[in-house]
């Protein structure tokens, strides 16, 4: 009743399998440089000095940071997001008048606020891992963007308005430009959440942003933990 199968066949098959495995292992490489042609793609544009040709003279940082614009806001540090592909996040409810716009590179949220005469302010929602330098560094960075001098640690308690909404502790600053020739304003809110800091930053013309402050504060109070 014993049937002996063709052993050479099994040996050959097995040798083939082992050889295939060896080849697969040897071919397991992710280090190839590739090149290809794709249809034109649009990127989020960086502001002037950042997109300037490498062989041109640099735009002074002071000028860059003192003229915030929607485009600039998309490229500065507060708009440099953590590339969290998924995972827990925050949600919010924006006023109907705010115009949602594409996220660009990797903003968590992005809105335009349009005022009289077509003036536009940009609201960006971003997140960074860790403390991102702490409240003082973040506030001083925003102050620098509207040409305000940095503050010291001692001045920090008075510099930001603090409140808690939906279990999230916010620090909010209202920074108006010291440059009368370029009246800009930043309303910035930040809250730590799950090992990252979330930034809500409204940048634009002084009058428009000042008028939008109550709506901005109400908006921050709608921010809450996303239900998975």
């Amino acid at each position, binding site marked *: 009743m014993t049937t002996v199968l063709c052993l050479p066949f099994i040996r050959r098959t097995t040798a083939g399998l082992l050889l295939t495995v060896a080849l697969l292992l040897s071919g397991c490489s992710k280090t190839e440089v590739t090149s290809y042609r794709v249809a*034109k793609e649009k990127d989020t544009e960086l502001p002037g000095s950042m997109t300037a040709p*490498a062989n041109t003279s640099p735009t002074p940082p002071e000028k860059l940071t003192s003229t915030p614009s929607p485009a600039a806001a*998309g490229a500065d*540090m507060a708009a440099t997001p953590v590339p969290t592909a998924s995972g827990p996040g925050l949600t919010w409810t924006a006023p109907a008048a705010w115009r949602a716009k594409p996220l660009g590179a990797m903003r968590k949220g992005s809105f335009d606020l349009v005022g009289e005469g077509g003036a536009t302010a940009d609201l960006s929602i971003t997140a960074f891992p860790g403390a991102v330098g702490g409240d003082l560094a973040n506030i001083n960075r925003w102050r620098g963007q509207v040409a305000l001098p940095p503050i010291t640690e001692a001045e920090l308690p008075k510099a930001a308005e603090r409140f808690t909404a939906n279990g999230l502790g916010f620090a909010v600053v209202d920074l108006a430009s010291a440059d009368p020739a370029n009246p800009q304003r930043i309303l910035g809110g930040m809250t730590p959440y799950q090992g990252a800091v979330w930034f809500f930053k409204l940048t634009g013309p002084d009058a428009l942003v000042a008028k939008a402050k109550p709506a901005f504060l109400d908006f921050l109070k709608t921010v809450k933990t996303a239900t998975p």
Partner: protein
Amino acid sequence: MKTILRDLRDFLVSLQLTVALLVFGMLLVFAATLDQTNLGIWGIQQKWFHTFIVWQDVRGVNLPIFPGGYFIGGLLLINLLAAHIERFKFTWRKAGIFLTHVGLILLLIGELLSGLWQEDFHLRLNEGETRNYAEAFRDNELVVTDVTDEKFDDVVAIPEILLARHTPVQHPRLPFRVVAKAHYPNSILQMRKPDGTPTLATTGLGREVVAVPQPITYKTDEANMPSAYVELIAPDASPGIFLVSTGLVAPQRFDYGGRTWKIGLRAKRIYKPYSLTLVKFSHDRYAGTEIPKNFSSRIKLTTPDGRDDREVLVYMNNPLRYAGLTFYQSGFANNDRTTILQVVRNPSWLLPYVACALMTVGLCAQFFIHLVAFVQKRRAKLSAPAVA
């Protein structure tokens, strides 16, 4: 020489080796599970399973501490195959055992192929946005693109690992050499202080922003933000040293050799000959509550040749399977205006199913054969005349 070969053969076919490998396998799973609290699921897969040797940093020295998953699984596979060749003779009485072992071999091969071939990407789409590529979760690439032409971009993509190894790259499509001066697997970006924080960058955004290295994170809800300082070296006037980072929102533009270029570090992309547009993302909740009921993405699938131009609905447990890829509903963002789809390619996805089916059939067959033999034996015993 013959003695050594015979010893080697005896070693490879021995049952003791099988038992030892199974014990090592159990220890490996146990240790990796404990280590998961430190490294997370992705970290332990790389450190313990997708490797031949497990390395551990002991007071600054990297030491091998345990055989890795590939080593144990690979040796187990060789052991099984060698034992069959050496000892196994097919008989119908052992057909079930044979099938079970074939299933086990297939399972091991399937795991190996999955480790080698499986690719995980994600596709992030805003409502109304169209994309013809997905992005890797963890692999990144330095991209140098010739954007001179108005209709298309010529892209040269350099895997991040070459930056980490500081391997100079000279590509035929680039008029300069690409050399990483520094590479940080994880970093944060900071504005340079007015007094001038030292930076390696000589041009572009790196004159205003610096990358500060950070420890690598393995947490599932965090992502590393790699950065690098990359020098472009040409025979004449070199474009300079750029700071590139996945944290920067857009690539940096520069002119060289009468052409316009862009350089940036981004998630590795896989382009496809079709495109997907997010028509609408829906996040349904039970009435009057915030409890999620359903997430779904209405996607428009289009091919350039017009063979496919249709809408599909992707929702939980109802992925889109198309051209060898599976698109699962994975997440959402931007106040329900952005969908995140997980895109998986696994050519060997069927092997584990076939393996399990073979093992099930094999075990059942073996049990049935034994049962029949037992019943026949019992009948024979009962029908045998009693001995006085």
